[in-house]
């Protein structure tokens, strides 16, 4: 099996999807000949022609409006938003249109073919507008699916699943892992399930939950905890919407403790939803308060990014506090 970084894995998924189905199209700002500013769409225009892989004008609301129309027509658009921070001009098209297309028409029309890819997250010295993690904004929107991969293998399998999923999917790619995360990735076609969390490590004392780039942070924290004799169960949520309540609940029923971490600000972040659900479903089994380790309730900073981010030390401290409660 070849070794790939996350960008290569994503490129491979797009390549397979486009080769298999003429209806799959990739477009967005600079995704054509340049292959996107991160090069996720490299060589696709060469291979599949300008009508299937192309630059769009610089207008996110137009990109998603166009993609909604294409999907309603029966095409399978994979639209790129250059940075997740720039998805907001398309918020109306996503939240009022994409999400509600099937419901409002009584399933006469749907945009299930649509996938929206966007690099998200911090750790790259990007400041306010190249670092945001907007998953929670979309997770409050029935009709959307939201998926975040943690490594190249996951990225390829989940992206292929997203493209073929009968519902519209927002696919947020942890950009600080684009080149940093590498691993074995099958060259051929495969899919990973959407809507299912994955237990990446079993343990008994506390459940530690995250997604995307935070999984690496969690792994480091859990190693520190391991050295202190704390046995952590680790869950990668993978799908933020719909999320796999049952797997999380099952784990917490076993460990009695839960630490959730994400980069987005605390207030209104998706950890709140998980904590609210878990406290309800595991009430009598919880041995300590569910802890959230997140970004601060501020815009994303630059010089003090390290201080802002929920890193392994902060997660480690939360694990210890949870177990010691």
């Amino acid at each position, binding site marked *: 099996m070849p070794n790939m970084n996350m960008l290569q894995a994503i490129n491979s998924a797009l390549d397979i999807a486009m080769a298999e189905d003429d209806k799959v*199209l990739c477009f967005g700002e600079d995704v054509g000949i340049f292959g996107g500013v991160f090069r996720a769409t490299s060589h696709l225009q060469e291979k599949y022609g300008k*009508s299937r892989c*192309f630059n*769009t*004008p610089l*207008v996110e*609301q*137009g990109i*998603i*409006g*166009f*993609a*909604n*129309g*294409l*999907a*309603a*027509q*029966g*095409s399978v*658009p994979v639209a790129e938003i250059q940075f997740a921070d720039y998805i907001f*001009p398309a918020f*109306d*098209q996503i939240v*009022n*249109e994409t999400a*509600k297309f*099937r*419901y*409002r*028409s*009584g*399933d*006469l*029309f*749907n945009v*299930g073919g649509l996938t929206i890819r966007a690099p998200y997250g911090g750790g790259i010295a990007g400041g306010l507008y190249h670092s945001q993690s907007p998953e929670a904004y979309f997770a409050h929107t*029935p*009709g959307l*699916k939201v998926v975040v991969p943690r490594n190249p293998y996951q990225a390829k399998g989940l992206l292929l699943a997203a493209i073929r999923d*009968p*519902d519209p999917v927002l696919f947020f790619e942890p950009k600080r892992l684009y080149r940093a995360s590498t691993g074995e990735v099958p060259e051929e076609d495969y899919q990973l399930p959407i*809507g299912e969390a994955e237990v990446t490590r079993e343990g008994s004392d506390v459940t530690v939950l995250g997604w995307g780039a935070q999984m690496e942070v969690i792994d480091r924290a859990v190693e520190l905890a391991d050295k202190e004799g704390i046995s952590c169960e680790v869950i990668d949520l993978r799908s933020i919407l*719909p999320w796999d*309540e*049952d797997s999380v609940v099952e784990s917490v029923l076993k460990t009695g403790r839960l630490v959730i971490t994400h980069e987005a600000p605390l207030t209104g972040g998706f950890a709140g939803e998980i904590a609210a659900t878990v406290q309800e479903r595991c009430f009598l089994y919880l041995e300590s308060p569910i802890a959230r380790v997140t970004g601060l309730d501020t815009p994303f900073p630059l010089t003090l990014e390290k201080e802002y981010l929920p890193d392994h030390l902060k997660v480690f401290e939360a694990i210890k506090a949870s177990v010691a409660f």
Partner: protein
Amino acid sequence: MTTTTDIHTPDFLRGDEFSIPTFRLLRQDGTLHEGAEAPALDREQALRIYRTMVATRVLDERMMAAQRQGRLSFYMQCTGEEAAVIGAAAALDDADMIMSQYREQGALVYRGFSYDEFMNQLFGNELDYGKGRQMPIHYGSRKLHFMTVSSPLATQIPQATGYAYGQKLAGEGHCTIVFFGEGAASEGDFHAALNMAAVHEVPVIFFCRNNGYAISTPSIEQFAADGVAPRAFGYRMHVIRVDGNDILAVLSATRKARRIAVEENKPVLIEAMTYRLAAHSSSDDPSGYRSKKEEEVWRDKDPILRMQNWLVAREWWNDDEEKALQESLRREVLETMKRAEKRPPPPLDSLVSDVYADVTPALQRQLDHLKTHIRQYPEAYPRGARSLDPDVKPRDDASDADNRGGE
């Protein structure tokens, strides 16, 4: 990039360098303007168009009356704009996609959407294709290639660009027409849509109904320019302005637009100058923002009468036929309305279906919980209770209609 001539004095253009003329064929009395030539139109299609216009008008009048009686929560009329909407629809292939704003029921009538189908949507009953989820007038029909209406303005415009791009790739010679008001054309989505369509050479017809108002806002507070048409120059897009109350001109212009779209893969902008003769909606009262006199001027330009005059002059139509048509349509409206009102609401399960292709486990849990709750308080939820137990008689309160929004 641009290759233009040079100037050496800082002369600003002012936007008044040119004006866009209005294309007209038919006078109000039914005669043609001098030099005008009617588009090819046989008796059959002419009457299909005319009957559609009358059927739309009758539907609108009756349903607005029904709304005032409290039988319906909300309604919007096409009144005054029938020629613009129906003339455009008649210029298309019936399999071309229509994406409308909300005031284009005439296009649906033209394609064959029945009064029963209208009523089911208006009353949100179990036969409504939209399963009673959207407010009245949010029609849609897959078989008639008419995209379900969505309330947020202008969102359909870039969607039309995308839809038409897909049609171009599919290569079956179809195009998309997208309707919108001169108000909606102020949204950012308008700019996105036209620019992308021009860059990507998409077979789409942008059809702007410039009816003078966006609710209470007159077009002079909507834009400073001479209408919407001049914007086409900013996209190097084919454009025409047409008398929107002139069925022949609209038909002719849209036919030509369709040829440009489908044969050259070029988008086209049509601005139809017309007037919203009725209130914005059943929630609106125009007397607060415009004069009766202004309305009268436009009532004299009624597009249906204009076509009737033309038909009568050609002896394709007469008073008796008119009377018979009106009567049968009125009867049909009342009958279908009664049928639709009596039909039960959509089943409780429709609350959670179609959010996703499949109902998620969490949604199923929410539905189950709701069912338990409704079984506990069936009187409080007559519609839901009836769905759980079809023998329960619906006992809807009329308060919905009183409580409607103000838009």
